[in-house]
Structures are given as C-alpha cells and as structure tokens.
C-alpha cells in the first residue's frame, strides 16, 4: 500500500486570497523539483517522465514514444486535458487526480509556487495565448477543513448502494475500478476531483456533482471499512 503513504500530507490548503501575479522566473527555479524526471525546452526528450513541451492544451498521455501508466492512459481517453486547472491539481497532488499515476512526486503544496511553475511551463507551450492571463486562484484539491468531516456509516451505506451498480461490492474490477478499502483521504480527493470536473469521466462527474462534502465523507468511511468485512462464504 505504498501509494497511500504520502497523500494525506500533500493536501493543499485553500488559497486565502487571490494569488499575486505568477512569476515565471521563480517558476524556472522551482522546475528543479521536476527536472530529475522531466525535460523541457529545445531538444527535450522523454526521461523518467515525458517531456513537457507543449503540455498546455494537450490530452493527458498524449505523446508518442512514452509508456504512460494505465491510469494516465485511461484519464486521457476519458478526456483529461492539461489546462491551468488540471495541471495545478496534478502538481498539487498527483494521485488525487490520477489514482495510480506512475509519477511519484509528493506534490507542491503552495498555490503561489504552483502558479509560478505553471507560468514557466507555459512559455514552452505552442499556443500560450489560449491560456488565461490570470494565474489559477481556485483550489482544486481537497481543502484541509474537509478532512475532518466525520463520516456517518449508515448514511454511507445507503449512498453506497448507488455506487455498487457499477463498482463491484467485492472489489473486483471487470472494467470499472475497485473503490473498496481505500484510505478515506484518497477516496475523498478522488470524488472531489470528479465533482470539480478535474477528473474527466462523465458518468462519475454526474454522480459526484450532487454529492455534498458530508455525503462524500460518509461514502469514504463506508467503502474504507467495507473491504475489511469477511467475504460471504
């Protein structure tokens, strides 16, 4: 369960005030957090991660010659496109946006730093004019305040009945991923991702759109403990 270890730490705080104008030069320095795995600029090649030229406006997992994870390919096929909002969410907490992404990066917590980094990356995208001038101010990842909402297991059980029409209750995956036995924070982050339409799947967006924070917390509690019940004989 290595994938879960660091997630809770990387939940970003909500931005209190509009971020100041983004600074691409500071972003260039911050790119050192990425450059161990990614190249950008003239002659950039794929390394541990794909090169990041022209990333704005591109489909996730959209480059040839690089072997992406299954989940990144799925997200791309679903319609995940790299925009200021989705890039911000991915860099803040990669697994909150793409559950089993192979990018093992713990996330950049500070929204202002992310805005700077994105301003830097934007310089390497072919159509920067398509990118809104204002730096992202929205906070797409799970606000810390939410992490404390206590889940009500009874309510979760009723709400969960809607989910198991598609997600098998025993955790098997016949084409739709398992959602049982997840750490609650990861589960909540994923549902917030669909609700904010950062995660792309239409069916899940529709489901999540009408789930309030309390409902999401109840569901997280229910499915987290669900897998621990002994399977029916």
């Amino acid at each position, binding site marked *: 369960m290595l994938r879960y270890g660091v997630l809770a730490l990387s939940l970003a705080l909500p931005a209190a005030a509009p971020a100041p104008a983004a600074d691409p030069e500071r972003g260039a320095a911050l790119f050192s957090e990425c450059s161990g795995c990614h190249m950008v600029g003239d002659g950039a090649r794929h390394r541990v991660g794909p090169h990041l030229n022209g990333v704005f406006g591109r489909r996730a997992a959209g480059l040839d010659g690089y072997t992406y994870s299954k989940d990144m390919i799925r997200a*791309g*096929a*679903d319609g995940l496109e790299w925009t200021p909002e989705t890039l911000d969410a991915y860099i803040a907490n990669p697994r909150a946006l793409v559950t089993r992404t192979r990018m093992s990066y713990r996330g950049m917590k500070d929204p202002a730093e992310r805005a700077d980094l994105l301003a830097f990356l934007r310089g390497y995208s072919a159509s920067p004019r398509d990118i809104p001038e204002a730096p992202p101010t929205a906070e797409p990842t799970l606000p810390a305040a939410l992490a404390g909402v206590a889940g009500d297991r009874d309510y979760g059980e009723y*709400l969960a009945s809607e989910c*198991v*029409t598609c*997600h*098998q209750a025993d955790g098997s995956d016949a084409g739709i991923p398992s959602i049982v036995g997840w750490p609650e924070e990861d589960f909540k982050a994923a549902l917030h991702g669909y609700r904010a339409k950062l995660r792309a799947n*239409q069916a899940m967006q529709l489901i999540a759109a009408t789930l309030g924070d309390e409902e999401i917390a109840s569901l997280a509690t229910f499915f987290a403990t669900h897998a621990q019940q002994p399977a*029916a004989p």
Partner: protein
Amino acid sequence: MQTRRSFLGATAAGAAALAAPAAIGQARPRLVVIGGGAGGATMARYVARDAGGAVDVVLIEPTRTYYTCFFSNLYLGGFRDYDSLGHGYGGLATGGVNVVHDTAAGVDRDARTVRLASGPDIAYDALAVAPGIDFRWDSLPGYGVEHQNAMPHAWKGGSQTQLLKAQLEAMRPGGVFVMIAPPNPYRCPPGPYERVSMAAHLLTQINPTAKIIVLDTKKSFSKQALFSEGWAQHYPGMVDWLPPSITEGVQRIDVAAMTVETGFDSFKADVANVIPAQKAGRIAEAAGLTDDSGFCPIVPATMQSALDENVHVLGDAAIAGDMPKSGFSANSQAKAAAMAVRARLTGSRVFPPRYSNTCWSLIATDDGVKVGARYEATGEKIASVDSFISQTGEDAALRKQTYEESLGWYAGITADMFG
C-alpha cells in the same frame, strides 16, 4: 396442476405455508415481490439484507434462470455467449429471500394477498410489483402473439433472442432484415438501434451484401446522431432508417408473405424483428394498478403506487417521469423503494432517494457510447436534473474505454441484483 405441483416440488409446500396472514405485532412483517428481474430481484435482495431478518421477503418469479435483456444485443453481435446472460436465484435464497418459482395470477389488494397460478394465496404487509412489460398485441394489424416465432420481437430475455440470432445467421445471402421499432414509451430507448448495430456487425461478417431496413414509428430516436454516424462509418450502405414521414407508418403485416405494408411501399423481409407497442406486465393491470397509459402511476419519492400505499411498482411497469425504462433505472428505483418499505415495516431511517441512469450501447467492436442522467423526486414526477451523452467524433480510445466500462457495469449490476 399435477405437473406444476411436481415442478415446484418443495417450494409449493413452502408457498402453502405462506397462506397464513402475517399477524402484525406477532410475526415478522412480510414483503412479497412479484417478478425477479432488474427491479424485483434488487428490491428483494436489499430488503432481506438490510432488514437483517426483521422482514420476511418472498420473491415470486416463474423462471429459474433470468436471462438479461441488457447485453442480449451483444450476444446477437457475437460479443457475448448466451450462457453469460443467464443468472440463477441461488444467491438471493442464500441471502435470506424466500424464492417461490411460480407466477402471480392475481392480487387482492383489500385482503392483501397474492394468488399463485398453482393455487395458494400469499398474504403480504407490503407488495412490490415488478413484472416488466407486456406487448400491446393489437398495435400492429396482422401481427399477434401467435406470430412471435415467425417474426420474433426478442424484446423479452431468453429464447426469443436466440431465435432472432438463428434467423439472422440463416438468412439468404443478400437478404433483407426488417425491424419495426416501437413507439414510446418502451423499454430501453436506445435498444432497437443498438440491435441494428449488432445485427449489422454480424451480417458484415457472414452476409456482407445483406440489407437492414428500420421502419420506425418515431420521428427521432435515442442517441440518433451517434448511431447514424456509427452506421455510416462501420456499415456503409447497409442500414436504412425510415421514419414515418417517409413511410407514412406501418399499415399492416402479412406474416405468411413476410411483408410489411406501409403507406409508402411494401417491404419484403427475409428476417423480421417486430417490436410491438408496450404496456406494464399483465399482473399490474390485473391488480388494478395501471392507468389509461397501460403503465402504473407512482409516488416519486418512494415508488409507491399512486393508487395503493401498500404497493410499490418498480421498473418498466412504472411511470417513472423522466427516467427511461432500463435495467439501470429499475435497479436504482428498487433501492429507493427498499429503503421506503423498510422504514414503513421496521421504522428504519430514510434518506432522500438518489435516482440515476446510465445506458451504454455498442455500435461496433470497441465502439461504445453512453448516455446518463440524474433525477430527483419532485411533487409530481421523477424529474431529470442533469445529464450527459457521448459526442460524435470522439476518438477511438474513449469509445473503447466506454465499452469496457459497460462490461464493468454488467458485472456490477448483475452482482447487485442476484448477490
């Protein structure tokens, strides 16, 4: 009688014991569910499971194996084998549901009893009616129940689907497959057009000069742009869809001559798939639960019959407002009804119902599309509040993923229905 009794074996004796009315306060309250399909099986399973033995749940269903209509088109197209569509009731029995393999012949709503075809009455405290659909056999002149083997409808699960597939496979080279698509409302709005796609897929391989003609009673249909695009792309020249503005409607069917006469022309078929207009399953009408439309009005929040609070109507038989008649909808409604019935019989908690539907259709290999919506119970109906639909021109990777999702859904919903 003799044969039915021996067929029923031990269950008939069990059913006889059910004739004693449940004296409330002494015995456990009893829920009787008529019909073990998408609506009824889900309802029975959820009440038995969540009430933890506090409710006696009896399910009446004549067949021992339920063959899903959903994915039956994929069987037609060769993407699924027939056996994979069949589901038994063993899991429900293990889960505490008393499964009685018999047909409900009548309901006495004053006495609160259900009459079984084999004779005995079963008393209920709450009743759920989920018999699916029946056909309006008078809707197409010249076509009646006695013609369903010559021109199958294949709109109920099981042998009809096998028959239609066998006829398509045996069709002469270059033959014509004619489908008569039903008027609204009917079960599974995109179903006829998914069937056309799957028939085209099959014929492209075994009979590439064959033609498919759809004589529709509607001016437009579900996911029309998506299907039209898919037919042009995958099966160019094979499919002709003819709305009533062109045909002036189907006037009569001559089954012996295998012709369909319309106001415009007469169509000669080598294989014909006739899907008549529909109404709620017969038992709903016999129980006095239908209105002039032939379907059952309900209370939006609970799926109770608008005519009798002791009765819930689920799935295709109900007038569920904006929700389409689908297996997904029936399953969704059953969960709301299960919660409401438990609350009434045992005092358990109620939460606002959550209704939703997603219908996937397969157009060709790895080319899946979907449509979905969420609904809320308002005072007068179940109303759509949000929806999505696949777009034309989507890339192949997304279409493949959408198809794979549908496989996940099939596994999920059948496990959710049958345990």
